């Protein structure tokens, strides 16, 4: 018979338990990040928004989501906005044709639009309703759409790219938004900046009107030029107020 010293296992278990609790505090925050619900029409963002070089049409994001720079809500394109092109553009592939036919059904082309219905898009990006997120403030401050929404121009099926949880928001508000990273996200590192006159980027690199010069310029022209230079100094990061009442009221 010998003295047994199995007791050391118990504190070990305790440590594991505490670790599990702490981990679960973080993992409990799991958002719907990554969710990619089926949409009533399988709208191909790459076809529309990707740059011409990449085989897209290079449409500006604001072409369809046209309130993003004037309102808290971005707005979804009206059915007749879609029909503006798709009256004549009928698609090249069989799958594409089928989807455009769905759009026609919504637009009720058969009855000259008499019973047109809106397309019930399934919402992907949503902050809780006690959070006031004005798109206009962010877009006009030069935050590229891709910073939060991910590279939608490359998503065959849109999914929630960022976690959209509070820590994620706050990180940017406190540490600042790096215009360079934002521009990179929008794909601007692949083309020469000389193409653009500077301004607020509303679209992807290579899009037809990637930069809207008419808008109040929140990003100076040299910011654009610096995109390719080295690390952004912290003074040039765009920060926002981060007390609670900035978003919660």
């Amino acid at each position: 018979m010998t003295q047994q010293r199995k007791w050391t296992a118990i504190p070990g278990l305790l440590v594991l338990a505490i670790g599990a609790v702490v981990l679960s505090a973080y993992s409990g925050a799991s958002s719907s990040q990554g969710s990619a619900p089926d949409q009533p029409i399988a709208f191909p963002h790459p076809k529309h928004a990707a740059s011409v070089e990449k085989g897209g049409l290079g449409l500006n994001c604001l072409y369809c989501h046209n309130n993003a720079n004037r309102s808290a809500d971005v707005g979804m394109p009206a059915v007749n906005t879609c029909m503006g092109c798709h009256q004549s553009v009928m698609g090249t592939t069989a799958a594409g044709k089928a989807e455009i036919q769905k759009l026609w059904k919504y637009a009720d082309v058969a009855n000259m639009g008499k019973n047109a219905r809106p397309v019930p898009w399934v919402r992907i990006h949503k902050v809780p309703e006690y959070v006031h997120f004005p798109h206009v403030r962010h877009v006009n401050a030069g935050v590229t759409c891709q910073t939060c929404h991910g590279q939608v121009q490359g998503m065959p099926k849109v999914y929630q790219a960022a976690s959209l949880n509070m820590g994620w928001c706050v990180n940017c508000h406190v540490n600042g938004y790096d215009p360079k990273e934002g521009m990179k996200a929008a794909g601007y590192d692949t083309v020469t900046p000389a193409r653009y006159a500077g301004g607020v980027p509303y679209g992807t690199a290579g899009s037809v009107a990637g930069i809207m010069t008419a808008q109040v310029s929140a990003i100076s022209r040299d910011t654009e030029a610096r995109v390719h230079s080295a690390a952004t100094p912290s003074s040039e990061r765009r920060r926002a107020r981060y007390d609670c009442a900035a978003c919660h009221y």
Partner: protein
Amino acid sequence: MATMVPPREERVLRQNVPSASNRLPGVKNYAQVDREIVGTLRPTLGWFALLGTAILCLLIGISTWMYQIHEGLGAAGYHPPVMWGVYIVTFVFWVGIGHAGTLISAILYLFRAGFRTTIYRASEAMTVFAVMTAGLFPILHLGRPWKFFWLIPYPNWRLIWPNPKSPLVWDVFAILTYLTVSATFFFIGLIPDIAVLRDQEKNPIRKRIYAALALGWRNSDNEWRHFTRAYLFLAAFATPLVLSVHSVVSFDFAMALTPGWHATIFPPYFVAGAIFSGIGMVFTIIIPLRKFFKLEHYVTINDLDAAAKLCLFTSMVVGLAYLTEFQVAWMSGNRVEQEYFWNRVFGQWTWAAWIMLICNMVLPLSLFSQKLRRNTSWLFALSIFINIGMWFERFVIVIPSLSHEFEPWQWGGYHPTWVDYNILLGSFGWFFMWFLLFIRQLPVMAIAEIKEIVQPRWRRHHDDSHDLDVQVIDPTLTLGDD
């Protein structure tokens, strides 16, 4: 492990627990202690009936709480500006009850008060269960109780933290610390006693449970050595803790600028009140316990007498605090304060204030009489009055103050509803459920500590032990007995 000691002549050992035999003259030897105390653990029909009642009360409380969560706090009797009601009153009440247990087990331990030994285990259990009960109420009274953990600083994805300047966060720390430390203290003290149960238990399942709880305790000299030292340190920690916890609870009020709350006297006043109410509860618990468990020769009338003196003393401290409050208001020249105290004692809340004053200040004065101090029936009756009085003390502090603040337009009243009462009842059910489980599953008295003051057997009679009742070896007790 044992170090070498210089060889010396065979020493004559001498007892140095002079009080042992006259403190507990009815307790003769170790075996008797085991027999009588372990003997209380057999469940009886009456116990099941009581336990059933307690669980029923608890279920009523739980279902009412569920209803309240679903409906919203409006189901309770809140009447703004009285934003805190029965729940906070009951919270402070239970925290206060808890204090006597720690006082008895820790402070009196440090002071080596003799009457502590037999009552401390039950009081300590009372502490743990009372704090467990009290800890529910701050959660229970929240508007969104499911968010209570936001008060605890834990790393989270929102990157936000609680406000450490808030007295409620201090409360979280104080109450959690108090619960942890008193439960630890309680459990550590129990280990050797559970080892006794483990060794005496016949039922294999219970034996296994006791064995697990005893943590492999073997009564070895090494264990006892660290145990006694750790126990002493825990007592040393628990002593300032017990004073701090109710001070922190009193900060909930004293840190506010509400008239009737905003007073520097609150910490000592609350601590004294807590100990007073706790001793009241100890009487409520111990007196029936010693009677029904036939342990009168353990908790002797002398012990009760000593505790009653403590009760009298704290009652007078509390009474002094009451009078000081009035005096401060009177002499403050602050109209808001004066009107509030007038309203408390002679206005809207006369009934509650006088229940408090009579139960806590007047009735305990009877303990100046030795005859009443040694009359268990009176002590028991008085303890009930004290419990009621101390509940109303908290009522008087919390509610009248809120109902009569700075803004006359917002003066109001308060009427609890059935929801408040059910939850109050549920809290008693919760407390007594644990307590009843405790008294039939674990020893209500500290076996080892009683053994410590009971005369051990001696081989020889000592000449100089004339003042001691020297023990005679009981020939029936041999190895393997029991």
